[in-house]
């Protein structure tokens, strides 16, 4: 399966076509195709994951042997064990490839030869493969070796599991061959599982939630397309393909946000999402271009990052490249100041918000950084600095996003800003060098946030409103399953100690901020992260109060509310269970001094974190944080402070209520939050308004009056000169032309008026005469 992952995105892609083609004629409006395809994908994704775990446990023989030596000696040999694209020196590579060839099965023979070609580093070799031959690097060694090898536990920590890369020629330009291919390592295998898992649950949830919708078929078609695009994105082995996937998920997001496009608000939100992302894409396009040239005319991710880690790319290039890509991350992953589209994206159906705008698509930016961590780590000097752009963006976002969640009355908006804030944690984690923590948090967040979003959908399913203050309240008893799952999701989001997934992942991020980086670590990130945790607990407690406590208000009072059917509650229960269980995937080695058995600790890090030269190593100052007891205690304290103060405020009515009326400063602050820091106003009214309005109109005026004015004036002048020439010039010349065109005019029946054609002839004659004279003069002068 590891070499055939390309099948996984293909299935939902076909499903998309199938649903569009005959979804409407099916009894379930095409949802059955969608569900079936995603279910198959999930199975295949899990198979891929298991294949990968096997591969880590029993790494391919030759690679293992090489790597054991390589970790001591340095990178070059390791690179050769790695994949066929690493720019190690040719002789080393050739020997390794020989090893491959000896153990290769018949089908791999071709590829071994191919590797040899590439190793010899000749451009000519690429020509051979220009006709669709497939280059498989590594093949299924994992399974092949699965037979008898036993590895001592201690050795496991050091061995290198090469990623599985497979590619074909996409196109050639100049003497560069651009390839398309797949890359499977722990990271992409994990993403495959997350995406298909959440997608399947969302599909099931949707069959009830959007059942009977006016555009049910299109809805499921887009879900399939989204799943395909996202899967395509995560298995890409080169940045160009990532750009393709990146934009396609954006398209699906656009389509689904604007699902009910009859209302202008929805289509506005869709446009806003697409355009804001396009702004970030400027950075993506430029960043990818820079890195393409930096890696010596290649989009290959492995090659790029290997070169970055080995110091073969100028630092300034890496820095600029990663800064450009950060812009892209800011838009796609909703980082402060380009986050404004994400809350508006809640205009789409709620399951879409869960899948696309919380669990999967918005982490595309995180994935971009994680995938190209060699570039970012070295470009931003993450390992040695105390501050860098990525960490700052993340920290500002996690805090500012959390503030905004306070003033929302719409439950989905609360969750949206919470997503912004949590994505900030992930970016900050990557910024401080805590790679595993970031991905772990991505994983846990995907599950508990999907749980919360689907929960809010379940709440609103009957009342068709997300307004907590006006239309909810007292939902606790009336929807017990939704309530229970929502509480678990909330606790996980708060990071309730020891039992929830959110605790373990968030704690790792904070520990990373404390321990990693140059001397003193990323202090500001620790502080902001803790503050963010306080805020998170407070706003979630507030949301809980409004939704579940008190008496029903507004629409929820008018409706006979009852719990939803199994197609809604079962996904909720699964996700709630996940919100607890997945936290144990990456227990630290020691918790409060108590050792965790080796077979249970750091499993995530062990299987997911890439090994090998395409990932930063100790030589690049990359290291891992450990469990820090005081941070765990402080973050537990943060929960108590946050949740406790919200409890006192809402339940007990304590605290300075009404301060926003009394105090100018508080009122001002509240207003700023209410207006979302005025960013929307700045973007929509000031910038876009100016460009769309006065600026565009001015340009058009310039076009019509200045440029066209000149053209018309020239035309008029020419007409006068032409008239002059027409009257004076030898009639024979003009006559011929006029006659010719006269017959042409008759041919058309109606014809432009004689007067007009006459003019044309005059100009034409004049121009050509002038041209001939000019040419004559010119040739005489030039020669």
């Amino acid at each position, binding site marked *: 399966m590891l070499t055939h992952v390309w099948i996984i995105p293909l299935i939902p892609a076909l499903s998309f076509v199938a649903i569009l083609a005959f979804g409407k004629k099916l009894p379930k409006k095409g949802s059955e195709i969608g569900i079936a395809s995603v279910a198959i994908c999930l199975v295949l994704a899990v198979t891929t994951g298991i294949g990968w775990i096997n591969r880590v446990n029993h790494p391919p023989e030759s690679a293992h042997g090489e790597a054991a030596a390589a970790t001591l000696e340095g990178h070059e040999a390791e690179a050769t064990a790695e994949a066929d694209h690493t720019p190690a020196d040719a002789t080393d590579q050739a020997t390794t490839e020989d090893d491959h060839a000896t153990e290769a099965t018949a089908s791999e023979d071709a590829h071994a030869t191919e590797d040899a070609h590439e190793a010899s580093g000749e451009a000519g070799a690429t020509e051979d493969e*220009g006709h669709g031959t497939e280059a498989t690097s590594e093949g299924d060694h994992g399974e092949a070796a699965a037979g008898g090898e036993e590895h001592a536990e201690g050795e496991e920590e050091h061995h290198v599991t090469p990623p599985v890369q497979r590619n074909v020629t*996409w*196109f*050639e*330009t*100049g*003497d560069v061959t651009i390839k398309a291919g797949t890359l499977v390592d722990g990271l992409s295998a994990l993403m495959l599982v997350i995406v298909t898992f959440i997608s399947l649950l969302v599909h099931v949830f949707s069959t009830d939630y959007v059942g009977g919708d006016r555009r049910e078929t299109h809805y499921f078609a887009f879900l399939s397309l989204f799943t395909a695009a996202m899967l395509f994105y995560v298995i890409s082995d080169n940045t160009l393909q990532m*750009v*393709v996937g*990146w*934009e*396609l998920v954006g*398209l699906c997001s656009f389509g689904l946000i604007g699902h009910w*496009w*009859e209302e*202008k608000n929805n*289509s*506005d939100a869709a*446009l806003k999402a*697409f*355009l804001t992302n*396009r*702004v970030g894409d*400027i950075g993506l*396009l*430029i960043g990818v*271009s820079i890195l*393409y*040239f930096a890696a010596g005319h290649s989009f290959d991710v492995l090659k790029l990052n290997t070169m970055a880690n080995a110091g073969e790319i100028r630092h300034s290039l890496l820095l600029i490249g990663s800064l450009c890509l950060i812009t892209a991350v800011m838009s796609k992953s909703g980082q402060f100041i380009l986050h404004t589209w994400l809350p508006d994206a809640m205009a789409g159906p709620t399951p879409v918000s869960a899948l696309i705008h919380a669990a999967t698509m918005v982490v595309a930016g995180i994935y971009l950084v994680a995938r190209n961590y060699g570039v970012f780590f070295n470009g931003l000097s993450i390992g040695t600095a105390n501050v860098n752009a990525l960490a700052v963006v993340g920290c500002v976002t996690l805090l500012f996003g959390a503030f905004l969640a306070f003033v929302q009355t719409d439950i989905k908006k609360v969750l949206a800003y919470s997503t912004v804030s949590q994505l900030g944690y992930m970016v900050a984690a990557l910024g401080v060098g805590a790679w595993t923590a970031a991905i772990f948090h991505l994983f846990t967040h995907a599950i508990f946030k999907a749980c919360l979003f689907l929960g809010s959908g379940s709440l609103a399913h009957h009342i068709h409103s997300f307004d907590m203050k006006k239309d909810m309240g007292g939902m606790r008893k009336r929807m017990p399953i939704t309530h229970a799952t929502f509480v678990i999701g909330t606790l996980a989001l708060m990071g309730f100690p020891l039992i929830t997934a959110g605790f373990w992942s968030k704690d790792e991020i904070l520990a990373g901020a404390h321990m990693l980086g140059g001397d003193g670590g990323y202090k500001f990130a620790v502080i902001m992260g803790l503050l963010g945790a306080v805020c998170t607990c407070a706003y979630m407690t507030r949301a809980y109060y409004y939704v579940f406590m008190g008496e029903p208000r507004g629409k929820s009072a008018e409706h006979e509310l009852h719990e939803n059917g199994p197609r809604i509650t079962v996904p909720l229960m699964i996700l709630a269970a996940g919100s607890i269980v997945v936290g144990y995937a990456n227990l630290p080695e020691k918790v409060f001094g108590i050792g965790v058995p080796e077979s249970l600790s750091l499993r995530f890090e062990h299987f997911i974190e890439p090994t090998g030269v395409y990932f930063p190593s100790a030589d690049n100052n990359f290291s891992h944080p450990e469990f820090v007891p005081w941070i765990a205690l402080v973050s537990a304290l943060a929960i108590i402070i946050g949740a406790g103060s919200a409890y006192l405020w809402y339940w007990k009515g304590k605290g300075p209520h009404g301060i926003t009326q009394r105090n100018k400063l508080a009122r001002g602050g509240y207003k700023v939050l209410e207006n979302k820091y005025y960013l929307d106003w700045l973007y929509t009214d000031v910038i876009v308004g100016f*460009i*769309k309005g006065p600026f*565009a109109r001015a*340009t*058009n005026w310039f*076009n019509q009056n200045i*440029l*066209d004015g000149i*053209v018309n004036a020239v*035309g008029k002048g*020419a007409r006068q000169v032409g008239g002059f020439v027409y009257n004076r010039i030898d009639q024979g010349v003009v006559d011929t032309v006029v006659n010719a065109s006269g017959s*042409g*005019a008759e*041919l*058309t*029946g109606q*014809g*432009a008026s004689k007067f*007009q054609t006459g003019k*044309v002839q005059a*100009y034409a004659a004049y*121009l*050509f005469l*002038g*041209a001939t004279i*000019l*040419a004559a003069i*010119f*040739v005489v002068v*030039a*020669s």
Partner: protein
Amino acid sequence: MKDLLNGWGITAAVFLPLVGALVMLAIPKSEETLHKVVALVTSLAVFVVGAALLWDFDYDHTAVLQYAQDKSWIELINARYQVGLDGISLPLLALTVLVVPLVIIYSWDHFPEPHNPKAFLMLILVLETGMIGTFAAQDLLLFFVFFELVLLPMYFMIGVWGGEQRKYASLKFFLYTAFGSALMIVSILAVYFLSPEITSGAQAGMHSFSIPYLSEWGGAGLAKTTALVVFGGFFMGFGIKVPMFPFHTWLPDAHTQAPTQGSVILAAVLLKLGTYGFVRIAIPILPEGAEKWAPVIGGLAVIGIIYGALGCLAQTDMKRLIAFSSVAHMGYVMLGIATLTPFGTNAAIFGMVAHGLITGMLFFIAGSVKDRFHTLEIKRLGGLLLQAPRMGWLLGFSVMASLGLPGLAGFWGEFPAILSAYQPAEGLNVALFRVFMVIAALGTVFAAGYLLWLLQRVAFGTPTEEFEDEHIHDMHLTDYIAWTPMVVLIVVLGIFPGLIFKVTNQAVVHALAGIGG
């Protein structure tokens, strides 16, 4: 078969339409159906010839002229009937032979006022001869003749079947391009006289118009300023045709006033004559001049990208908006050419084909909207997805393709052009081109802006009161037939860009041989 193609393939493709037009001349005007059939059969025959040429083409040697013919024509000045196809002209020829029959099919029940299918279809066929001839010609004078031949039918098409301001628009179109042509012929004559005489063979002692011959010469021994000025003539001729800012003002008028068929052909093929001229003639013959002019071309290209986009945002008419978008899109093509790199030029040719298909589609849809609603004023439209869902979805599709969505054809003209601007050919100002790159990348945001805004206003929402109760007919059979191939190609080329890059690459590398050396 092969011999036949080698000997007569190109000639057949070029002159078959003319034969068809002559046949139609003999048929009385009232026999409308017969005219339609003859025109369609002719264009399909040309398509078959084109397909055979495509089929038989040797894709391993795309830099070599294939199906080449070299017959004497005007012996006195050694202008020859020299034709041939290589990797640069082949995709454009394919585009032409495809688009013309589609346009004829689309016309079937959609003849614009004042009707008269006979004259209309004859003009389209004459136009086809001109277009194919331009792409096939390997002799400068022959090229020029075909290049100019295109002008007349289009002039009449706009002037007779156009909108309210057709006279102004058609005249402007004709004069503006004729003006460029005038300067171009100066340059053609200049390279004719300035290049060395042929030294051997039957034509020894004569100057030559042969494009391969002149490309091989590559302006060797020419004074720098001479190369600069001669290239300037080509620049004006081709640049106006493209059209490049600030010579673009004929385009929105011509497009807006032209009948749908005219707009489609104009966008799909005619604009490419200019960009093709750069790649085929101006750059290979005068590489030194090209290097000098590249910053100017690149600069005007990126100005065009932003300027065209702003122009689009200000438009209130759907068709005029699409017309303006051509200015922006051709900006990417010209930026790719200006880098003088293989990647950039490959992207430019890809961009030409992609723009032809995509903008052609947009004009088709605009034409059908006009046909149903009798207006293209954006604020009067709305809710197209409700009234004519298929058309609405296709508009969405085309808009996405047009804004350069990866996975569809538009992307491969756009992104590689931006990418290659990061590192233009040796000797060009790198810093300047990187500024161009950033501006071009910014242009992608603008493109998304005006296109999606158009989509939102036309397709989303609900119909305006005016058309609320009107029954709007969704796609006709002719629409299905005419649009399907274009949609399919937009998707296929988007997924397999190699289909075009593979054809153009060697030829482009060959054409750029003189750059940086």
